[in-house]
């Protein structure tokens, strides 16, 4: 009889344990119990989130590929596979290895589909960096990303970093990877064909991250709790590089019927899910698993999260072909078992049976609908906010705020050029990648303003999606598909669960309206520390198609005399803004409103104008509003601008408010007629707000001069904040 304490320690409830007894008709062995506990944890089975994840649209304007580990879209003859995943808890425990293995894990998810990884993006959240501990975590995470990413030969081309004390006890490390292959070369994560062989390939199995999966993902962080620290997984990017090459070569042989990365919950998850997906059973003996250490218990072997391992299903009689390829790349590959009839996963240890479980039941985690409780909305009264006297000072302070300041000090540590496809570099709205031999390219971005989501989860999550779209559009790409990484607090607390529910509904609704499929994603709950929950952060990763790579667009001002055009409308909105937080010390109010019809028209005009070829630079407006966006175009273009604004509402809101649906473009003066035509086509009002030129950014309002600053001084504030 298993003591309740044991299964509870593993994260199973009494009811879940009863269900296991019902499935098996007997007491589970310790290995079986451990396997159920991980398969039914949030990390693998999504029992607390699946209900809402079903809301996501699976189709869009491009053909979507949904349903395997990593999804994607099809364009031309190419499948573009992408996924984002979190590695928050491991990174909080051991920042360098945690982040490094996060990168390794998501790269494996991509190439197991047969796609070659071409880019990674990292979306990071830390506590205030004036605190040395937060800085230590950040430096460790960045070091891990640059170490693993640079060694493995996949460029780290973008991402985002936000700082807020909500993340002080629980940092977020979300990594996205994009890969490409011919659409008919895709491979599925399933076991097929009775009698086919199951082959284990890659690194040996050690005691890495045992229980990490269920214990880490289902317990909140308490810093003093040394006992819960599991063995940390350590990655080896050079092995991973060989694994990429060996795996892609194996998949080309045509004898691999299915393949899965041994990620979360290692061998348990990969074997049972491959069998469940194929509607078959799997049989193997643990004595055949290559081990790194002696004396490992069966449940340890099944739970181990050792990195750089793969499970393949190979046609009977063809095993040698595959084993030879892995051996050639210096990797171990052994046959451990076979596909069997009957839908059971049968595991023996030296011939002695230790597990016999129906895979369908194992892979079918319980589904919970948790109670939620609406949070009170915060309000601010703009009239009660002091108007700053010196707007120049405000702009400099905002540009030096770590959330707006240039992240160059971080991304220049990453190799963003390896594979030589990066054609618009990181540091702007989205990164553009060429695809060798094709006239088209890809733009990639990630986005989420957690503060907005905290203030209004439905609206905040929608803004994350439309802003990611605007980032792509401003680079000349048509938004094509979404992946998400949903980071939230403890779902068993109704106020936290409300954030999750509303944010998912927001993303689902807006994606449907923008015709974007959600092709893949990941949920990370329990992001809490004794200080409370993180800001709810549904990070959106997005891929867009640049139909003509020659017409890509970037942020910097290009030529003196060009006209600066504002698409969209300025509104008097300050809620949730960076300005309100940095200057007034408040994180309150409602995020800016979203008029979806206006948003669509702004994006259509911008994209059409770029595709026609008249746009010289484009920049989406986000944190820091119009003034920060103009400053960024000027700083990156090393040239000034003189601007005249007509709006008569309060000046701080005009300059620093974060109203949505706005993009600034620059065009040559003679192209104004072409732009007017395009704008009329989409019935979008636009405004010529100024001209590029000079060494200063000068902004005049209807009554007086608002800003007058040398670009060099702006650049100093913008570039030095993160370096200091």
């Amino acid at each position, binding site marked *: 009889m298993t003591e309740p304490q044991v299964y509870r320690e593993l994260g199973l409830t009494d009811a879940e344990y009863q269900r296991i007894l019902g499935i098996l008709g007997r007491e589970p062995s310790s290995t079986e119990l451990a396997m159920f506990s991980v398969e039914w944890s949030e990390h693998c089975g999504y029992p607390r989130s699946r209900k809402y994840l079903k809301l996501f649209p699976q189709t869009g304007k491009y053909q979507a590929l949904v349903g395997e580990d990593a999804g994607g879209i099809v364009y031309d003859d190419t499948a573009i596979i992408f996924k984002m995943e979190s590695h928050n808890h491991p990174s909080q*425990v*051991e920042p360098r*290895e945690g982040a490094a293995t996060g990168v390794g894990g998501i790269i494996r998810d991509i190439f197991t589909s047969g796609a070659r990884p071409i880019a990674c993006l990292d979306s990071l959240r830390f506590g205030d960096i004036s605190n040395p501990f937060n800085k230590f975590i950040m430096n460790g995470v960045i070091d891990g990303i640059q170490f693993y990413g640079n060694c493995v030969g996949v460029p780290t081309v973008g991402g985002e970093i936000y700082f807020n004390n909500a993340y002080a006890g629980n940092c977020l490390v979300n990594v996205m990877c994009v890969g490409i292959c011919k659409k008919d070369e895709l491979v599925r994560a399933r076991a097929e064909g009775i009698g086919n062989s199951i082959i284990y390939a890659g*690194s040996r199995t*050690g*005691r*890495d991250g045992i229980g990490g999966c269920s214990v880490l993902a289902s317990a909140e962080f308490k810093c003093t709790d040394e006992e819960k*620290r599991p*063995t*940390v*997984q*350590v*990655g*080896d990017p*050079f*092995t991973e590089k060989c694994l990429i090459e060996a795996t892609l070569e194996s998949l080309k042989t045509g004898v691999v019927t299915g393949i899965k990365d041994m990620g979360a919950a290692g061998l348990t998850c990969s074997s049972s899910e491959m069998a469940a997906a194929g509607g078959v059973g799997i049989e193997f003996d643990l004595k055949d698993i290559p081990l*790194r*250490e002696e004396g490992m218990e069966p449940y340890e072997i099944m739970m181990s999260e*050792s*990195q750089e391992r793969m499970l393949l299903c190979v046609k009977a009689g063809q095993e040698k072909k595959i084993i030879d390829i892995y051996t050639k790349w*210096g990797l171990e590959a052994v046959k451990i078992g076979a596909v069997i009839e009957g839908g059971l996963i049968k595991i023996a240890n030296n011939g002695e049976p230790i597990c016999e479980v129906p895979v369908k039941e194992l892979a079918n985690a319980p589904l919970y609908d948790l109670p939620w409780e609406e949070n009170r909305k915060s309000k601010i009264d703009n009239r009660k906010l002091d108007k700053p006297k010196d707007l120049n000072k405000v702009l400099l302070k905002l540009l030096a705020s770590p959330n707006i300041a240039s992240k160059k000090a971080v991304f220049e540590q990453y190799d963003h050029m390896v594979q030589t496809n990066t054609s618009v570099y990181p540091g702007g709205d989205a990164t553009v990648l060429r695809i060798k031999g094709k006239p088209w390219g890809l733009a990639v971005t990630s986005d989420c303003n957690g503060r907005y989501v905290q203030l209004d989860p439905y609206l905040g999550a929608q803004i994350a999606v439309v802003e990611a779209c605007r980032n792509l559009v401003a680079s000349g790409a048509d938004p094509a598909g979404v992946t998400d990484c949903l980071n939230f607090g403890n779902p068993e607390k109704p106020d936290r669960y409300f954030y999750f529910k509303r944010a998912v509904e927001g993303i689902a609704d807006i994606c449907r309206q923008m015709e974007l499929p959600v092709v893949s994603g990941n949920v990370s709950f329990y992001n809490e520390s004794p200080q409370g929950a993180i800001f709810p952060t549904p990070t959106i990763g997005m891929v867009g198609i640049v139909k003509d790579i020659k017409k890509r667009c970037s942020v910097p001002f290009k030529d003196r005399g060009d006209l600066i055009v504002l698409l969209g409308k300025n509104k008097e909105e300050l809620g949730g803004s960076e300005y309100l937080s940095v200057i007034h010390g408040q994180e309150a109010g409602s995020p800016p409103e979203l008029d979806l019809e206006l948003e669509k028209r702004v994006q259509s005009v911008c994209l059409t104008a770029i595709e026609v070829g008249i746009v010289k630079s484009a920049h989406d407006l986000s944190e820091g509003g119009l003034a920060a966006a103009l400053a960024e175009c000027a700083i990156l273009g090393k040239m000034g601008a003189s601007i005249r604004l007509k709006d008569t509402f309060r000046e701080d809101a005009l300059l620093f408010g974060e109203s949505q649906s706005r993009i600034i473009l620059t065009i040559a003066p003679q192209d104004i007629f072409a732009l007017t035509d395009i704008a009329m086509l989409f019935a979008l009002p636009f405004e010529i707000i100024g001209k590029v030129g000079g060494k200063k950014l000068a902004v005049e309002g209807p009554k007086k001069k608002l800003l007058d600053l040398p670009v060099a001084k702006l650049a100093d504030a913008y570039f030095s904040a993160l370096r200091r």
Partner: protein
Amino acid sequence: MAKVKIYVTHKKGILDPQGKTVETALKSLGYKNVSDVHIGKYIELEIEGRDVKQQVKEMCEKLLSNPIIEQYRFEVET
């Protein structure tokens, strides 16, 4: 004045890619009888005053080792 010798190694069971690589290289040089290669670091320092052991322990926990994945031991020679 005391001389302190500190040895930092991976904790048992943690993957040691450097050790693994060196092991493979040794084998390829013909030393087929080699196994279980582990690479760590050796630190020497001199220190004055009392509570030497306590202070060195603190240094190891805070800076010289990464207590999450590494273990250390040290010898004090007076």
